[in-house]
């Protein structure tokens, strides 16, 4: 069979969602993905810990939002391939009536999400977060989500795939303006900032970051790390909850989890 049978899903080109799946020990990745992923791990072995830490961050954030914050509507932008402990599973464990929309622009991610995640009070749609209206006006979103009630917008490990020339700050602001007061924004974002506890020099850190970013240029979405101040700008119009924008490992950690901070910033804000 010729290779060009596959049109929308091209397994021959490295893909960030499948690379992430590889980091998490999943099996939905292909040689092209693994080639890049293995190079990333060779340069930054910590990548494997960071993706696990990001999953743990997601768990804690969603548990907080569904529990203490009382949120019943979640929109997960750039949701990625289904794995263990997906947003609706975490949210509905706390609040069985929680409604969840998974949004991704990747055909394989959407196919898997529709097959494996969608169900009662949960839908998966194909849309590009860089076009907020296409998400918010999507009929399935309109059917499930009430824009007069508080909504939690999850942007985890995704905004670092939106370069500045695609106006990531404008995109987040557009979503913000459509959310009612009392809604929440959760973000995690890759950074080259020096972790609090490391023996790496700023030069070594910068070099590592640059190398990883170069590798991601081979994929379908390039990676743009940002500084703390830049990531904080996404929260314009939101009040950051304690402990603020911190390394994800430090955001309300479970006691059982070891604290080796670094790699990603994370925070949760409440719309004024």
């Amino acid at each position: 069979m010729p290779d060009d049978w596959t049109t929308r899903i091209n397994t021959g080109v490295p893909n960030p969602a499948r690379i992430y799946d590889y980091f998490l020990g999943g099996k939905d990745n292909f040689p092209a993905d693994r080639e890049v992923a293995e190079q990333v791990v060779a340069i930054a072995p910590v990548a494997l810990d960071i993706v696990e830490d990001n999953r743990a961050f997601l768990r804690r954030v969603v548990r907080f939002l569904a529990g203490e914050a009382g949120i019943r509507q979640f929109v997960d932008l750039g949701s990625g391939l289904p794995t263990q402990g997906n947003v609706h599973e975490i949210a509905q464990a706390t609040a069985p009536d929680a409604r969840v929309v998974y949004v991704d622009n990747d055909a394989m991610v959407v196919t898997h999400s529709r097959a494996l995640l969608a169900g009662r009070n949960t839908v998966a749609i194909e849309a590009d977060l860089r076009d907020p209206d296409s998400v918010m006006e999507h009929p399935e979103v309109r059917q499930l989500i009430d824009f007069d009630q508080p909504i939690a917008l999850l942007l985890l490990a995704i905004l670092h795939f939106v370069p500045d020339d695609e106006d990531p700050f404008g995109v987040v602001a557009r979503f913000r303006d459509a959310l009612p007061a009392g809604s929440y924004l959760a973000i995690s974002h890759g950074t080259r900032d020096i972790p609090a506890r490391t023996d790496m020099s700023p030069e070594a850190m910068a070099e590592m970051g640059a190398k990883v970013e170069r590798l991601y240029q081979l994929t379908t979405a390039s990676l743009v790390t940002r500084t703390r101040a830049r990531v904080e700008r996404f929260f314009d119009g939101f009040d950051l909850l304690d402990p603020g924008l911190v390394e994800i490992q430090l955001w309300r950690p479970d006691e059982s989890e070891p604290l080796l901070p670094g790699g990603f910033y994370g925070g949760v804000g409440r719309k004024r």
Partner: protein
Amino acid sequence: MTALDNSGGMADCVAIPLPGELMTEGRTAPAGPTVQRMLVGAKLRRLRTEMGLSREEAGEAIRASEWKIHRLENGQVGFKERDIIDLLRLYQVTDPTEVAEFVSLAREANTPGWWQHYGDVLPQWFRTYVDLESAAALIRTYEGQFIPGLLQTDAYMRAVVQGAHLDESAEELGRRVRLRMARQQLLTREQPPRVWAVIDEAALRRPVGGREVMAGQLERLIEATKLPNVTLQVLPFEVGAHAAMLGAFSILRFADRELPDVVYLEHLTNAVYLDKRDEAERYLDVMESICDESEPPARTVELLEKLLDEV
């Protein structure tokens, strides 16, 4: 021994008397010997490569050939306890607890799977499938001609068997159906596997067994979509040419990270199992493509109801 197709088919249907208590088997999630052997083999391979040893060098330690190591690591043969202990020593695994766990895993790998109760009912090559299927966490399947076996009704299955002119008695046919039903129990057991099936429109339109049987089968499919662990997608005619036109296949995925996906292809008189990553991934690629081209799962019931009206 004969078969048309696993999922459509008759491989699990070779007529030999069945003991009656078998219908209760297979409700829990047994790993089954094939998978246990693959798991032990995969662990041995990892340990050996971590030590930088060749298969030949490992073979010497257990007075065996490179080929024997190859077969052990691929889970193709059972394990002798002494071999396991000698290999672990060579791989510098000396913690007694770790060694004991390994030996116990290898021992489990030598015990028979639930289907062994069926004696000679199953052709050997299909036993492996039943074993793998009952251990899988995710079963992805594409069917072009049949309704997948795990979702067939009794009557549909009888009609398929009759259509194949196997020339057998009513009693034999009855036994086949019972065995199929035993396999189907995995859908509703505790911790069932996720089944994600793509069914070609052709399989849904061919009135196997006549209108009544086909209507019953379509209703069964509609019921199946209500199971939380079953996803059905219809691959419509309007898609035209697609990546899976060569025919039916299944991909079995196991929860254990060390176990590779296994692709199952069935022929009339035997079956092929592909677990080499590059081969299995060609099929995974095809599966991704047809899942994307098929109607989304949320439309399946509507499509099945339309077909039901047209039967």
